[in-house]
């Protein structure tokens, strides 16, 4: 008997398919109303930090080098008032086997899938995570399917995504490429249903716990080399897992005083599910199109409860523009000798401006880089932007309009990280909970953990809704 594979039928079997595909009973952690026990979920379904270090070591992941970006620090000091200009550091996650920090997330998921006896893993991603899952599946001997949102209705795809497909296929994965639309999730469920493979979602406790080692390694490196914790860590923010994992790792290492800053490319105004706007984006990740909705509504992901909950950890959230990131990508290559992929340099760009606002004796860290190459390169992405009618200018990035132009700053002093209002994000988070009745005490406690606001502040926001 063949199963009904229509959109409605698959979507209605969502919970049943998911339960089989992740091996976690999320109901176990549900508490009251909107509340669930996040820490209990992380503890009971995940692995300890020591176990994760061991799992990652088995495929030579982690212990990536830390570079002090001395020339960018010098540049920041030249452009800031005397006494300002923190030392800028970079953790080179491109040194991981698949070329990004995502290898850490994938290692734990693939290890877990194998331990549970799954024959293969499936991930829905256009990006570095797909490459990481494919690489880990190859290393650990599982089959792998990567599902990508790749083309618009004209069959035109962004070079960055096409490069990632190449990389996945190089590791022996099956790559399913789709046109634009949220029904990527439908295809994903259908594939999970057909294959019985493991859902290597970015948002399971394994996917997030795998990153904790980055935070832990950073704290350890700074203690060993600088005798103290870094003052600020800047994380490129998309789905929130990178920020959550890094911050958790820093906390587990005891680095409680380190400020955690999220950074995204500002793509305000571009609709993520729009066929005609799809190729107007010259960035496929690390932008506000993911960063903002995933911060204010973390459970919109592909598992019932997301382990990526950035508002629990984010102290500040800043945005930069594409032109600024492309400029800093050139800067990293030209004066630091590090040619790395643009999307990962979002945090470098933010850190450069943030360093100018900090005292010279402070230390700011960018916690990742990603590999670069054909398709994932400044010139490839700018060529594609130009083909899609985006003008490339040299001027003041403040005039940049996403989807219309990309403005390379005519001088590095014009690189500015724009502060997002954290209170506004927290208010949106509460609004997204959409409860008609008032929250119970248990629910208020949960919101308090989620937003780091006081009960009084939460009650005041709820009243205003």
């Amino acid at each position, binding site marked *: 008997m063949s199963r009904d594979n229509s959109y409605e039928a698959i979507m209605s079997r969502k919970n049943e398919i998911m339960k089989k595909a992740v091996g976690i009973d999320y109901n176990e952690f549900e508490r009251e109303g909107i509340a669930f026990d996040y820490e209990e979920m992380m503890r009971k379904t995940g692995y300890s930090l020591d176990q994760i270090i061991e799992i990652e070591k088995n495929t030579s992941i982690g212990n990536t080098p830390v570079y002090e970006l001395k020339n960018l620090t*010098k*540049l920041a000091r030249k452009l800031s008032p005397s006494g300002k200009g923190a030392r800028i550091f970079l953790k080179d996650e491109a040194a991981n086997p698949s070329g990004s920090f995502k290898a850490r997330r994938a290692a734990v998921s693939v290890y877990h899938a194998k331990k549970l006896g799954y024959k293969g893993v499936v991930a829905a991603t256009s990006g570095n995570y797909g490459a990481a899952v494919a690489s880990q599946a190859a290393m650990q001997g599982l*089959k792998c399917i990567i599902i990508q949102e790749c083309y618009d209705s004209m069959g035109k795809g962004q*070079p960055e995504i096409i490069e990632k497909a190449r990389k996945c296929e190089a590791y022996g994965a*099956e790559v399913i*490429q*789709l046109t634009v639309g949220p*029904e990527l999730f439908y295809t994903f469920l259908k594939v999970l249903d057909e294959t019985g493979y493991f859902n290597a979602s970015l948002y399971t406790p394994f996917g997030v716990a795998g990153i904790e080692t980055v935070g832990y390694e950073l704290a350890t490196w700074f203690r060993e080399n600088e005798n103290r914790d870094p003052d600020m860590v800047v994380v490129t923010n998309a789905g929130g897992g990178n920020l959550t994992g890094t911050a958790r790792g820093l906390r587990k290492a005891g680095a409680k005083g380190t400020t955690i800053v999220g950074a995204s490319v500002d793509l305000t105004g571009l609709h993520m599910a729009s066929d005609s706007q799809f190729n107007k984006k010259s960035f496929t990740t690390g932008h506000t199109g993911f960063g903002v909705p995933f911060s204010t509504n973390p459970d919109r992901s592909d598992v019932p409860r997301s382990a990526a909950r950035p508002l629990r950890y984010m102290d500040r959230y800043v945005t930069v523009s594409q032109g600024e990131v492309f400029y800093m990508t050139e800067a990293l290559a030209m004066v630091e000798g590090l040619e790395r992929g643009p999307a990962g340099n979002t945090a470098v760009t933010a850190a450069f401006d943030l360093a100018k606002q900090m005292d010279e004796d402070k230390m700011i860290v960018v916690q990742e880089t990603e590999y670069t190459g054909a398709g994932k*390169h400044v010139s490839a992405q700018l060529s594609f932007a*130009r083909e899609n009618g985006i003008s490339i200018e040299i001027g003041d990035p403040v005039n940049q309009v996403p989807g219309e132009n990309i403005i390379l700053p005519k001088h590095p002093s014009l690189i500015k990280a724009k502060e997002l209002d954290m209170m506004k994000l927290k208010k949106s988070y509460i609004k997204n909970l959409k409860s008609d009745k008032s929250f119970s005490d248990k629910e208020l406690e949960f919101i308090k953990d989620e937003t780091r606001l006081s009960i009084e502040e939460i009650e005041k926001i709820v009243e205003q809704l």
Partner: protein
Amino acid sequence: MIAKKGDWVRIHNIVLQPDKRASHLPDDTKKCPLEMWVKGFLVTEEACIDDEVVIETYIGRKMEGTLIEFNPSYQHTFGDYIPELSYIGNQLRAILGGEDSE
């Protein structure tokens, strides 16, 4: 060109016709079908471009679709030379190489 069983090919098919797509979509996306592309080894004995075929993907799954490419290759590149980028390196070196440079 005729592709033979075992050849590496690329297929295309429609996953959802426009009227079968999710309800909450922007208007431009709603008008388009959800399309899919996959590569694999041809299972069908012989086929030409535009034929309906069966393939076996690299991990051994069978899939059906329209044959669109024979020996599919990657065409993405580092892009064109972007003259707008060329000032950056020297600008930064000039700023850094000022009076207090080593």
